[in-house]
């Protein structure tokens, strides 16, 4: 039995089969867009509460515009002047999208496919009801991540707890424009994943060096329990190492653009040869030697056949040019190394968050680093799962892993097919089977490969204004309806729409306060300029660059000065 007061009365079905409309004076301004309401209906012999979300609010009856002409006179006073003494001047027609009644056995909403009868009272869903049905997990429960609270309710009244199991199996996309708080939100998610109830193995690809503040996790009491305390390892750009033999042929080609057809041919031939000779571990010198041998073989044959003389001898032919390019790209690089690489067990470990900073690394190299790492991760998980490796091997990884990738549009752009795009697509398609999941963070969904975006089954949307970005979202993301798409430009900082597999229904959420410091604060340029003067640096500089005083001129020459 419902004891609450209804806020409105059903008018009838809406435009689509899963919508209905109700009329309300909305005296307490409760019928906001995104708010949850319910009606009671007898379904299968039981009284069910059929929940719905308000998607539109339109005036059904308003005072004439002329009554609003004088700001100092309340329109209600004009209504009283002409004899209207009723309470509710304005009536609203509210459109509700039906979610259904919650089935606890299925942990999902069941749509009754029958709109309420005209005249059925409509109630605002209370906090307890929403807390129980919107989130798949409860606060503190394993696989629950407390992202914040429901936006339409007071702070913390209805906690929004997303299902980490869904995120870590069917991937995540965080979409937001610059400055709308996407790194902050990602920080909150990581904090939740590192709680004692979750203890995740996370790698953060950090092209801007914003996530180092997560090291504060290590000392915080909130994250420690029963001997567990999360570890955060920050790998600085100068310590990022990629073993050259872990590069695929595609990776090397990506690092060496504008190769001629002949160079491509000898590179492929040499790459196969070096693998035949040395297995999975080889060095750059060995690769170059293999390329030279390949060319020699081909040139030798060609010479025997009486053609193509003079090429490929003495290191000045195609192999020589290729060797020169390989040396300049790989030998001179501080990232690529013949022997050293980042061990997977160091990067991925339950209860550890690894921040891989790539902020001083060239963008092309960043793509190759990400591609090789993700490829190694995927292969290791596959090999471990299939029992093709053991704990003595470096590709042994006996636990699932999650990689959070900032600026994901750099690694899987819509406009090009990069080495990192291919690996990402493989993980998005098959990672679920092997416990490899990714979270893609991007500020330009319009620039992200649509196939990549559509494979992320949970989405966090923050403020997005760019129309092409919104189009890409509409095209690639099924879980967000047109009503929520319309909300995207209206979201304020710290407000997020969570949709997809990790929640029972899309929710507008207020992101909770981070427990660690946010590392991506903007530079306060005016304050720093002022400090320059306050510290007396201007005077110092003036003294440093002052010219010696010219000797005073004497006599006649002064006249002509």
């Amino acid at each position, binding site marked *: 039995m419902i004891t609450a007061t209804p806020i409105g009365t059903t008018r009838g079905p809406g435009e689509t089969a899963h919508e209905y409309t109700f009329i309300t004076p909305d005296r307490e301004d409760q019928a906001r867009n995104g708010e949850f309401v319910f009606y009671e209906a007898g379904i299968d012999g039981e009284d069910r509460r059929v929940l719905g979300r308000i998607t539109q609010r339109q005036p059904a009856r308003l005072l*004439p*515009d*002329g*009554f609003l*002409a*004088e700001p*100092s*006179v309340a329109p209600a*006073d*004009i209504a*009283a*002047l*002409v*004899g209207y003494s009723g309470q509710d001047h304005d009536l609203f027609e509210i459109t509700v999208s039906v979610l259904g009644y919650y089935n606890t056995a299925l942990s999902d909403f069941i749509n009754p496919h029958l709109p309420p009868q005209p005249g059925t009272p409509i109630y605002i869903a209370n906090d307890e009801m929403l807390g129980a049905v919107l989130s798949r997990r409860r606060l503190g429960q394993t696989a629950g991540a407390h992202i914040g609270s429901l936006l339409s309710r007071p702070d913390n009244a209805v906690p929004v707890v997303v299902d980490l199991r869904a995120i870590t199996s069917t991937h995540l996309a965080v979409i937001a424009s610059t400055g709308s708080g996407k790194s902050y939100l990602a920080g909150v998610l990581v904090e939740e994943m590192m709680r004692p109830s979750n203890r995740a193995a996370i790698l953060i690809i950090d092209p801007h060096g914003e996530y180092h503040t997560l090291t504060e996790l290590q000392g915080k009491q909130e994250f420690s329990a029963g001997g567990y305390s999360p570890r955060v390892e920050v790998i600085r750009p100068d310590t990022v190492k990629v073993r050259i033999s872990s590069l695929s042929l595609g990776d090397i080609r990506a690092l060496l653009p504008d190769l001629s057809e002949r160079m491509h041919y000898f590179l492929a031939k040499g790459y196969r040869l070096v693998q035949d000779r040395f297995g999975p571990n080889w060095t750059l010198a060995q690769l170059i030697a293999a390329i030279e041998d390949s060319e020699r073989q081909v040139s030798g044959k060609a010479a025997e056949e009486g053609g193509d003389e003079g090429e490929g001898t003495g290191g000045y032919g195609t192999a020589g040019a290729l060797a020169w390019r390989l040396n300049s790209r790989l030998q001179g690089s501080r990232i690529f190394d013949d022997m050293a690489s980042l061990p997977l067990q160091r990067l991925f470990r339950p209860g550890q968050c690894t921040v891989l900073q790539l902020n001083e690394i060239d963008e092309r190299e960043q793509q190759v680093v990400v591609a090789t790492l993700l490829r190694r991760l995927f292969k290791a998980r596959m090999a471990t799962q299939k029992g093709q490796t053991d704990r003595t091997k470096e590709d042994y990884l006996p636990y699932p892993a999650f990689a959070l990738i900032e600026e994901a549009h750099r690694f899987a752009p819509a406009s090009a097919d990069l080495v990192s795009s291919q690996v990402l697509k493989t993980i998005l398609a098959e990672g679920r089977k092997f416990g490899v999941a990714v979270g893609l963070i991007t500020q330009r969904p319009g620039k992200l490969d649509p196939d990549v975006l559509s494979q992320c089954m949970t989405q966090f949307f923050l403020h997005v204004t760019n129309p092409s970005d919104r189009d890409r979202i509409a095209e690639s993301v099924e879980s967000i309806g047109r009503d929520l798409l319309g909300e995207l430009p209206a979201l304020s900082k710290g407000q997020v729409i969570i949709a997809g597999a990790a929640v029972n229904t899309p929710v507008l959420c207020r992101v909770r306060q981070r427990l660690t410091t946010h590392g991506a604060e903007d530079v306060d340029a005016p304050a720093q300029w002022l400090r320059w003067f306050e510290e007396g640096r201007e005077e110092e500089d003036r003294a440093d660059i002052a010219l010696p005083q010219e000797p005073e001129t004497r006599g006649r020459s002064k006249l002509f000065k």
Partner: protein
Amino acid sequence: MMDVAIGKVVRSNSHIDYVCQVHGPGEVAAPPSVSDYAFGTFVRIPIGAERGYLVGLIYNTMLLNPDFGNLGPQLSPAPDLAVFSPDYLAEKVTLVGIIAIGAVNSDGSSSHGVPPLAAQIDTIISTLGDEAVRDFHTTSVGRVQVGYTPLLLTQGGATGRHLLLRVIDRLIDLFPAQVAALTVLRNQVAWQAIVTPVGGGL
């Protein structure tokens, strides 16, 4: 200002629409002047001592002249007609249309809109003084009220809005402290009465 008797009820077109025959010369000791029954004048239509009176507004004037169209030759010169056929002369009358817009009960309380009681034939109608107009438009909490506005706009015919404008103008004089609200209403009505007919929006 004294209340002036302007005439009597001679017929009605509906429950709220009455026709008043204005007292002509010689009918009463002090016949009303033209300004006493002008367009937009508030009038009192008594409905019995214990019941109070109806408040009406003059919204129309009709001049009745049975001689109109009789273009035949007259046997008597015009000055003699007053002597030989006085009844005939008295049939030239002025009629005014009155719309009942509310009632004032015997206890002084007033109501706006369609009054429940109707006026009777031959009831003498008189003008309503400023004090009575002010009382009629003052609510129990001391605010001005023009609760018959919808009635005038829907029943006042072609001149309904102009009638309302005259009423509001008079109320602006009578309620100087509440000019702001009255002006908003006036502007709204004026727009519809003046600007909309010549092509203004809404």
